[in-house]
């Protein structure tokens, strides 16, 4: 039995300790916003926050999150109360197919909370782990810079 906090709520699971967090969140807790893209830490589609840090959950066993705070895209914001990045994503029509976008936004949110005013190059470096096959990169980058510039309080 492993216990942790998921989007602010205490949860527990019987999943085997080597189960990647992604699959526990998707299959056992039925939160589908975090995506599977590669299963090997290469694409960022599965990105969540562990105690505020962006982590690749397809290769993170749940044994490693016991007692930790996990935030998924569902915990970041909702259509009624979106995170500033989510609002910017909508306003700038960032998503195409949208499949990579929860991971992109979780990485971007972690970046802005660590570095509220990144340069273009810093954005590129921080986001290089997130693949977007639809090629939304110019808009992702611009939306992050827009949010940073607007000086939103970014909290994770």
């Amino acid at each position: 039995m492993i216990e942790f906090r998921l989007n602010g709520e205490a949860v527990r699971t019987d999943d085997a300790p080597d189960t990647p967090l992604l699959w526990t969140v998707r299959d056992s807790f039925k939160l589908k916003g975090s995506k599977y893209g590669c299963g090997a830490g290469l694409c960022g589609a599965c990105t969540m926050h562990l105690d505020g840090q962006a982590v690749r959950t397809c290769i993170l066993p749940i044994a490693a999150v016991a007692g930790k705070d996990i935030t998924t895209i569902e915990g970041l914001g909702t259509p009624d109360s979106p995170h500033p990045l989510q609002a910017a994503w909508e306003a700038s029509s960032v998503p195409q197919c949208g499949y990579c976008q929860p991971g992109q936004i979780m990485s971007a949110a972690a970046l802005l909370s660590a570095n509220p005013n990144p340069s273009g190059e810093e954005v590129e470096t921080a986001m290089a782990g997130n693949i977007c096959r639809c090629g939304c990169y110019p808009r992702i980058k611009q939306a992050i810079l827009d949010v940073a510039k607007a000086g939103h309080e970014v909290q994770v």
Partner: protein
Amino acid sequence: MNAVNFSRRKFLRNTGVAGGGLVIGISLAGCGGGLPALRGSPGSLVPNAFLEITPENIIRFVCPRDEMGQGVTTGLTTLIAEELDVTPSRIQIALAGPHPDYDNPAFGMQATGGSTSIFAHFTQLRQVGADVRALLLRAASEDLGVPVSSLGTDDGHVLLGGARHPFGDFAATAREPPLPEETPLKRASDFKYIGKDFPRLDGMDKATGRTEFGIDVEVPGMMRAVVRRSPVIGGTVKRINSEAAAAMPGIAHIVQIEEGIAVVSEKYWQAKQAADALDIEWSLPALADVTSAQVKADYKAAMDAEDGDATGEQGDLSAGFAAASDTVEHDYWTPYLAHAPMEPMNAVVHVEGDRAAVWCGTQGIGAARSIVAKVAGLDAEHVEAHSTYLGGGFGRRGTLTHVAEAAQISKATGKPIHLLWSREDDMKSGFFRPASLMRIKAGIDDSGQVSAWFAKRVGGNIMPDVVEQMLPFMLPNAVPDGVVNWLAGAVEGAMDGWIVDGVSVEGLFEDYDFPNREVRHVTKDHGLPLAFWRSVGHSFTAFAKETMMDELAEMSGLDAVEFRVRNTRNNPRLQNVIKAAGDHMRRMRPTAGRHLGFAAHHSYRTDVAEVAEISVENGAIRIHKVLCVVDCGLAVNPDVVRAQMEGAIMFGLTAALHGEINIDAGEVTQSNFHDYPILRMNEAPEVEVVIIDSDAHPTGVGEPGLPPIAPAVANAVYAATGKRLRSLPLKLV
């Protein structure tokens, strides 16, 4: 259904579908069984397959095309919204299940692809909106006791004097037939939404993780399946030892299907681990003897030794070469490619006695239903099919083997099955963009005209693979398998024997005047399954054609733009795009160490020219900026057009810089994003898109941005280094 229908582009040519005059196949009756999305609330107005207006004035649009990121839900909703007179964001969007009313007018079947959606539905869906608005006005005039002429509309309301009456108030009265037909459409100058920028309608759901993709589907009692397939595509199970796997926690079933062995559990991770523990020996197919080097060598031998089939002849080629002052000949190589959409293949299927259901994100939900019906031994009417959003398509989701697999597993276990392919499965066991060897020999005369153009391609054809895959599922179940196989073989033979598959050479010869030309095709197929891949034939032909045009421009002493202008006298729309991009190029003024390359291409009725600004550092090519000029007729949502150009450029850059699928002893050597790298943000250029102002009928947008980018970069590399690169991916060392 006639097999020719599968030739998505050829079909289009044969039937001559034109901009206007599309037949609207909408039935007022029969909206029961086949339209799950529209089994609306009681009291709703459901005038046709596309719209529902509830008494509460909720307006639902059933989108007939599949949303794979290209913005089709936004685009098609805009068409309805414009004529119905409702703000697009007020309309709720549902995704269509299979029904003939949702056929793509360009194909005569329910499929999304070929950059056709806006082109094919532009008139049809506006007509739907206009007719329903007329219906609501008629009902309002009856209910309010005033003539229609005294009424107006605004954002889902009927206006009378100062009063606003929601459309929904008239839903009951409007249910009386007949539905008005051929209501006059708005003039372009009156458009409120078409041609205007506003945010995509699916943006917030996608930014908050709420969009449901196939991988996210949950149905009660659902189990998860993972399949182990032959390392060489097409191999079959010879011997299986499943003892270790069966003993692993949570494993409910292990079943053999046509493609391999399926492991079923309540949890994906358990199924995945047990599948990895299976001990399987495979019987390998002929493909097992093939390596990439062999493919290349075979193509080269065929290029030199075989004449192949002729197509696209014009004028007198030898006279053209005789008139040439300069002649040049080169070969161009482009490899196999994977589509690698971010969402790997998956499907949920439940076969339950005499009924079945399927949920998936696909470019052809009707075919998905037929496949499930065929596997389950049911009539298609007894299979419910639900579309989800697609986590990328690019042609990969026009293939459906994963649906057939899920159906087999569900049939064997009696459970609803969620089948997920891993990234490795997708990379190694999927379908691929065919490899090509192309040869171009061209002559130019003293006036800078291309006087002779000989182009030849060697490679596999996509159409026979598509037909072979789809035909068994598109015929009635009553047709015996033997007949189906014979038919599939006959179609394939026919395509190999006496016609050139149009998509194998498209784009190799059509764009320029070329008064004397000849195109030949030699089919060489080593058995790797082939599929449409974003921009299909254009994805490789544009590279050969446009790098050759650059070389000819230099030989002629003209600049890249002027040379192309001189050779597009018969193609004014492409010529105009070339000129416009040339004007922008002259203003680009790259700083020291940066160089420009130009390319232009016509595909999917759309003309695009691109300028790449690059630098070369230590042999590495870096793309800093891309300028893209596009004429796609009227841009229904200009920002979506810009996004598609940006996306197609990134997709094309992945192919230009990294993309390569190789085979060794028949096995695909790439497996995941470490050895099949996708362009990342730190490699992505800034993109500027210029849309030519036009009120012509809209043309393709999803694919045409892709073909010019690889040659634009290759031409810039030549400007930077003096080296002509004639193979993809581009490598300097």
